[in-house]
């Protein structure tokens, strides 16, 4: 009897195959990216809190407002947090517009203190964090892209095959049933995974960088087309916020998938590179 059988109390049916899934550059850039995105999100919300409105166009005109968070005094004299998206207003007391600060007191602020960096209101420091980690994020992203394109990682591991694309309907159904590929099929990413990763790597992350750059008056003078592409500096700010939301949604799904499809196996593969393939039934 093997150690493993003693451990699990049953005879192993078939020895699980361990493959080397993630190369060192991928693992390294992945974790640097996790750190950068967490800090960029939290410091970004600190910056957002300095002006809790989003607009389209070049000017911050009230008539071009698409999102707004604010605190007002309710009918009973108590403050209320309000969030307006388009023309619909929601009561968001406690979360958006009005929330309790570190000291437990009600505070008029866009996002609550537990998700902003620093937790207290400090735009200057939020910007320091944001721009330091923005540079790290860009350098890390360029390192990843260079490696992935030159090593064939994109072509080999991330590009969906024709057969995968034809069977996408089947994959969606299997995913919704939370049934994940085993055996040979588990040795490469499934089609939904590939499309999600490609969308994040080649659309969402470049877009968040470009819209961030468009908010810079200096870079706008150097590259005037940036403002044109996004339809104005305030549009760029809105798209920057939407991209960040998209990244947060991706991370939620990504982490959920990691948890459901074998958290230790997944974590190990992103730390050591080794991934255990469950034998096919």
């Amino acid at each position, binding site marked *: 009897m093997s150690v493993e059988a003693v451990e699990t109390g049953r005879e192993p049916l078939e020895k699980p195959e361990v493959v080397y899934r993630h190369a060192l550059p991928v693992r390294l850039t992945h974790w640097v990216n996790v750190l950068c995105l967490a800090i960029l999100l939290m410091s970004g919300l600190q910056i957002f809190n300095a002006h809790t409105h989003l607009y389209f166009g*070049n000017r911050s*005109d009230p008539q071009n407002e698409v999102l707004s968070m604010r605190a007002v005094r309710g009918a009973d004299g108590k403050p209320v947090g309000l969030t307006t998206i388009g023309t619909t207003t929601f009561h968001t007391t406690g979360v958006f517009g009005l929330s309790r600060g570190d000291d437990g007191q009600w505070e008029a602020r866009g996002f609550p203190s537990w998700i902003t960096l620093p*937790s207290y209101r400090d735009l*200057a420091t939020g910007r*320091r964090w944001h*721009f330091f980690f923005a540079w790290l994020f860009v350098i890390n992203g360029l390192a990843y892209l260079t490696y992935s394109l030159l090593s064939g990682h994109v072509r080999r591991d991330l590009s969906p095959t024709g057969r995968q694309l034809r069977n996408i309907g089947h994959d969606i159904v299997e995913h919704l049933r939370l049934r994940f590929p085993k055996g040979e099929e588990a040795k490469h990413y499934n089609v939904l995974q590939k499309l999600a990763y490609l969308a994040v790597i080649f659309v969402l992350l470049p877009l968040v960088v470009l819209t961030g750059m468009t908010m810079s*008056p*200096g870079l706008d003078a150097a590259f005037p087309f940036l403002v044109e592409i996004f339809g104005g500096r305030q549009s760029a700010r809105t798209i920057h916020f939407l991209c960040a939301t998209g990244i947060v949604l991706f991370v939620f799904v990504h982490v959920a998938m990691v948890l459901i499809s074998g958290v230790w196996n997944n974590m190990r593969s992103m730390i050591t590179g080794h991934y255990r393939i469950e034998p096919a039934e």
Partner: protein
Amino acid sequence: MDLKPKLSRRGFLTSLSAVSGSLLLGGCDQLSQSPTFRDILSKAEGVTQRVQRFVLSQKSMAREFSESDLSAHFKANGSTNVDDPSYETQAKSGFSNWRLKIDGLVTRPTTLSLDELRRLPSRTQITRHDCVEGWSAIGKWKGAQLGPLLQSVGLKPEARYLVFHCADELEAGSKYYESIDLIDAFHPQTILAYDMNDAALTIPHGAPIRLRVERQLGYKQAKYVMGIEAVSSLANIAGGNGGFWEDRGYEWYAGI
């Protein structure tokens, strides 16, 4: 498979997530206040400045808009008045007794009246004003170009920065001030604006003159400018960081 590494790996991962969690939630506030860590974070400003200066030439202009793009309401931020009797007296007389003082490392220290300033080579530009808070407004500015004015007073070779001394105290006891280097000082869009939207600059917007440095954020556009001083270093002025907001943690290079 051996049992031991599996457990320690699990332990490692658990402590890793615990450490990173507490680092993110609690530790970041402490890091934010640590002078050493703030110095590290501030390194990004130098990188940004160097990269932007590399991609920007003296010919790179901030975008100019048309009359139809003007903001219906241009928000007046920061100080909107000057709480000082001599300023109030000057304002009442339409700043006829006001004088702009230009001194420091210049060969011919000068004072200029508003009329004299209006007779200097001017530039009119409709530009977007980007506040560090995140909002933007479009305004039309007319003013004396700083470059030719500096040439006429003559900068000494050791002059590296221009400091703009203002009349307003945004915080009791500290007067507003700003500074730019010679690259921005000699940019054609850098003007001492006396008109806004075809009328004399109003008090909320910085009468009698405000600086326009169009490729940087709003806090560089100093209002209520009373004097311009050419200096070799910013270290000995107020907090030593080159501006009111800079002394409060904001970037001196506000191109982003």
